[in-house]
């Protein structure tokens, strides 16, 4: 098939057309399918806040690390993630610059839309394609040139079921998944199929997924994970948290030993709430509250 015919999308050809060789502006080489480079660190060089004030804190994250971003609604959490996503070079509203492995990323990595360094899961995202879960994940794996797309699709689904609690099979349509199943599948797919070494997660707390396992899954792949959140449990799960105020990173706090102790108890409370939710959902009555919720259980220090 000639280029011309392939342009029509079928082998059909009409006489007059046969003379027209397709032409292009530039004689650029096709972008080679390079492996995504190893990313060992990510640095967000300070820019300015919403009122133009200088940002003081530099955010530096290494592979296998989880950093959370906290701050009131409108403070600039999503902007910070957006700057990382587009690997800003002083050309976003914040003026921040993002370095990969200590250097400004090459333009082909900034703009290679089909091979991005950064993957994202956010509350606004949905599956829109009309395919079954297994078909689509296998299609994604094929794009990634994974050796056995069907096998990896099964792994992704098993993994998503692990995260979501409410299980689903590979034959179900993507658009029929619940919110929790959707986020769980997105995270499992990002961890197992996507080659992007940097993962951004923007406020997915209400999705009802197992946050601890989700993070463990991503971190196990040596990804750099940056999560914007209002959820205390998620915020304390990160090794550090960046506090955003008026559009600028105002402080970076390491999760303290004390906070980590609280984390265990907060997770117990959270689990008790989830159990309660599950009982209400299935039509049960709530009898005596479990000790952790009725206040009878002493603090475990």
């Amino acid at each position, binding site marked *: 098939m000639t280029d011309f015919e392939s342009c029509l999308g079928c082998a059909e050809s009409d006489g007059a*057309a046969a003379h027209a060789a397709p032409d292009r*502006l530039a004689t650029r080489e096709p972008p080679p399918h390079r492996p995504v480079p190893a990313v060992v660190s990510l640095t967000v060089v300070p820019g300015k806040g919403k009122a133009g004030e200088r940002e003081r804190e530099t955010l530096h994250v290494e592979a296998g690390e989880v950093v959370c971003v906290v701050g009131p609604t409108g403070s600039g959490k999503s902007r910070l993630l957006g700057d990382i996503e587009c690997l800003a070079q002083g050309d976003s509203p914040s003026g921040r610059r993002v370095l990969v492995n200590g250097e400004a990323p090459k333009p082909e990595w900034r703009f290679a839309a089909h091979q991005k360094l950064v993957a994202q899961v956010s509350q606004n995202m949905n599956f829109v394609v009309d395919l079954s879960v297994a078909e689509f994940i296998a299609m994604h794996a094929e794009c990634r040139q994974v050796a056995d797309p069907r096998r990896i699709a099964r792994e992704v689904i098993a993994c998503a079921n692990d995260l979501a609690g409410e299980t689903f099979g590979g034959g179900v349509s993507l658009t029929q998944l619940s919110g929790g199943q959707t986020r769980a599948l997105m995270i499992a797919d990002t961890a197992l199929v996507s080659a992007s070494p940097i993962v951004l997660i923007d406020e997915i707390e209400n999705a009802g997924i197992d946050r601890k396992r989700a993070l463990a899954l991503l971190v196990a792949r040596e990804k750099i994970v940056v999560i914007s959140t209002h959820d205390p449990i998620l915020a304390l799960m990160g090794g550090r948290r960046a506090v955003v105020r008026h559009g600028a990173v105002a402080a970076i706090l390491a999760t303290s030993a004390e906070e980590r102790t609280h984390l265990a108890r907060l997770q117990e409370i959270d689990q008790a709430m989830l159990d309660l939710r599950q009982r209400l959902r299935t039509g049960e009555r709530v009898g005596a509250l479990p000790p952790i919720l009725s206040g009878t259980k002493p603090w475990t220090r």
Partner: protein
Amino acid sequence: MRLITVAGPPSVGKTSVIVKTAKILVERGARPGVVKFDSLSTSDDVVFRRAGLQVAVGLAGGVCPDHFFVSNIDDCVQWADRAGLDMLIAESAGLCNRCSPHIRGVAAVCVVDALSGVHTPRKIGPMLKLADVVVITKADIVSQAEREVFAHHAHLANPKAALLFFNGVTGQGAAELAHHLAAAPRIAALEGERLRFPMPSAVCPYCIGETAIGRAHQRGNVRKMTFEDTAL
């Protein structure tokens, strides 16, 4: 004068892409204007004017909008010259995937919408396959996996094009597109230039206004469908 053709199916966000990118070009000292081609009516000119851009409108009426485009584009370039512009962005109606307004030696942009489904890049013809830059809009509201698959399919359909994501609401991607447009080749006029892909001509009675249905009117270059149960 730098000319840029922007094509893409309806409602993909061509107008927002142009407005957001032109804003950056203006900040960088360029004087871009727009010509909007459409078939029956358009209100995009209001949007462009509100953004401070000079705009001309071409309504094709009963003629194929792409044919109308190619018969008028050189006049548009002359208009832009007279209007003191140094860049003209031509937004097409984008109604049919068979035609393509892209011209040899003129920067060509195709805008597609990630919401339209991962198979779309393969279904769009020369409009996408012969573009220099493929802009993918609305990628922020589909899953990461769908973005990746969509971009991969666009890359397979047109391996030489620069591919970029564009958020029509926040303008993310505009700086990158502006960079491509600013590097578009200069032209003086289009007389003697060629389209990258031929457009089919009016070859049957329906092209020139026939409304009656029936075998008697199916004259000229007619192609009939074949069905499994009637095939030889």
